């Protein structure tokens, strides 16, 4: 056999026995996800579709995480619209109010997405679940409406690219740094239309949190999915959470790849992406002097408990730089509770950070930390496009939680080793 993980999952979810890259196939959807920005359009499309029937409500997940807690009347009305639809159609996997977290941190935590699944989400970072060994990809609201109606999606069978990370991870380097380095190498369209399969000894050593960070940013290289084969760590994570059976797939040894790239982690230092593209990456030693107005730690990329532990380890007993706003939003209610139990919240508050509710808010310039004209922010998020976090004349730099926490202390983009020495 000569199949990739992506091809095996697609074959398992389609009626076709054979296909080639470029073919368009219909695929059965295990999980269909939308949020408070994309669900309203999906519901409108569903209602325009006229059948009024939902295929398998248990496969649908709605998370009201982007403009929540409601930032204004318009967003409140969008949430109400989704809430009423979920109630009317008996959608049980509906996350609102105190159960709501940032969707791509929440779904793995809840055991709703599993190895071997075919998942679509009306949110581009749906590729996050590839870290569990699933084929998971972002789509639009109309695709989601179609999946609600038919439980199917159309997909152009992609080629796969393989990325191998070997060598020893350097201090303060995590999944975020490896992924920024990769995107800096291949560019924001380097994996366009293709599946990114990520493996190697360094990846085996990473915990699930770091792997989820890497798959999360596959879309920043244009990828259709970012898949990491499920191993023992994955199964240890998934088994206590899963409420249905799952299948672990591995690529065949002679599977075909469009290209294979290898990276030596011993040469990769903590990374920072400069405005206005995730591909504008530099090693921390090459950053120079960049003074900051805001640091944001959170999001579907780096808002998990493991990220907060790294940040708290650096900020413990120190004080956030004067005049710098350091925002920390634990990505889910559970992460918030764990951070409280472990004493991390106290460390952050004593350092002078601002704690906020689980929300996507600041990452997309939605609310809870908007940048003014000319301001510079460093964020553990995934995008630094023009105007991403506020005024079109503001600048966003991207990094992992260690660099973000160190920089919150010094007031300028800094290496964690500078603060910890």
């Amino acid at each position, binding site marked *: 056999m000569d199949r990739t993980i992506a091809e095996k999952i697609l074959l398992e979810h389609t009626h076709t026995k054979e296909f080639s890259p470029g073919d368009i196939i219909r695929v059965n959807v295990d999980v269909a996800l939308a949020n408070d920005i994309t669900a309203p359009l999906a519901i409108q499309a569903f209602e325009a579709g006229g059948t009024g029937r939902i295929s398998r409500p248990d496969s649908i997940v709605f998370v009201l995480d982007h403009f929540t807690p409601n930032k204004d009347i318009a967003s409140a009305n969008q949430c109400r619209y989704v809430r009423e639809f979920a109630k009317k159609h008996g959608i049980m996997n509906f996350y609102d109010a105190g159960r709501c977290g940032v969707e791509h941190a929440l779904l793995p935590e809840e055991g709703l997405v599993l190895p071997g699944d075919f998942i679509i989400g009306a949110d581009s970072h749906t590729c996050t679940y590839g870290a569990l060994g699933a084929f998971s990809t972002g789509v639009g609201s109309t695709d989601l409406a179609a999946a609600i109606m*038919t439980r199917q999606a159309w997909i152009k069978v992609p080629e796969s690219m393989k990325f191998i990370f070997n060598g020893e991870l350097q201090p303060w380097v995590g999944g975020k740094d490896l992924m920024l380095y990769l995107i800096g190498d291949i560019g924001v369209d380097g994996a366009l239309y293709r599946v990114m399969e990520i493996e190697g000894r360094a990846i085996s050593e990473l915990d699930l949190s770091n792997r989820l960070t890497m798959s999360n940013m596959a879309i920043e290289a244009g990828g259709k999915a970012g898949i990491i084969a499920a191993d023992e760590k994955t199964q240890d994570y998934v088994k206590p959470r899963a409420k249905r059976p799952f299948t672990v797939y591995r690529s065949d040894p002679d599977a075909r790849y469009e290209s294979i790239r290898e990276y030596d982690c011993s040469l990769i230092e903590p990374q920072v992406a400069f405005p206005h593209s995730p591909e504008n990456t530099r090693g921390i030693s090459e950053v120079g002097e960049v003074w900051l107005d805001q640091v944001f730690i959170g999001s579907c990329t780096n808002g998990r408990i493991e990220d907060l532990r790294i940040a708290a380890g650096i900020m413990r007993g120190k004080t956030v730089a004067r005049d710098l706003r350091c925002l920390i939003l634990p990505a889910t209610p559970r992460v918030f509770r764990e951070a409280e139990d472990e004493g991390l919240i106290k460390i952050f508050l004593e350092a002078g950070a601002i704690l906020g509710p689980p929300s996507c808010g600041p990452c997309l310039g939605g609310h809870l930390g908007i940048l003014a004209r000319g301001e510079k922010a460093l964020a553990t998020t995934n*995008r630094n496009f023009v105007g991403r976090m506020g005024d079109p004349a503001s600048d966003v730099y991207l990094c992992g939680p260690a660099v973000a926490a160190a920089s919150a202390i010094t007031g300028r983009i800094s290496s964690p080793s500078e603060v910890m020495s």
Partner: protein
Amino acid sequence: MIFRGRAFLFGDDIDTDAIIPARYLTTTDPDELKKHCMEDADPGFPSQVRSGDIIVAGKNFGCGSSREHAPIAIKAAGISCVIAPSFARIFFRNSFNMGLPIFETADASKGINQGDLIEVDADSGRVTNLTTGTQFLSRPIPEFMQELIEDGGLIEHIRKRGTI
């Protein structure tokens, strides 16, 4: 089908935050969204664009978020079609699902200037710069996606055929 309009030029990697910034996503109303279409890339665009005009962009157009507000805003602004060497994958499928014609045309962005009059023959994929007389050929559209366009988008396609 023939599209004819003035070219609005944009560079490489135009992202969906540039097409419609997230600060306007508290509505799904096309008439509201079009007022802010492309404003972070070209603040003059919403007031200057006319019905039938054509966006000619660089590679990876529409990268970033999955928001369908992006193709909705472009359609509502009156843009008849978008031409680029490549499109980000979610924008690509959203456009076909919603009936916004897009054409993958390798060299067009190099041979077209802002304001040139452009004609696109949707059936043959031929792009003609009527101002300079030069022509470009787009990649053929797969049969399934032609069906989506003929049916008027994915939802209408399902209504007509009972399945995707």
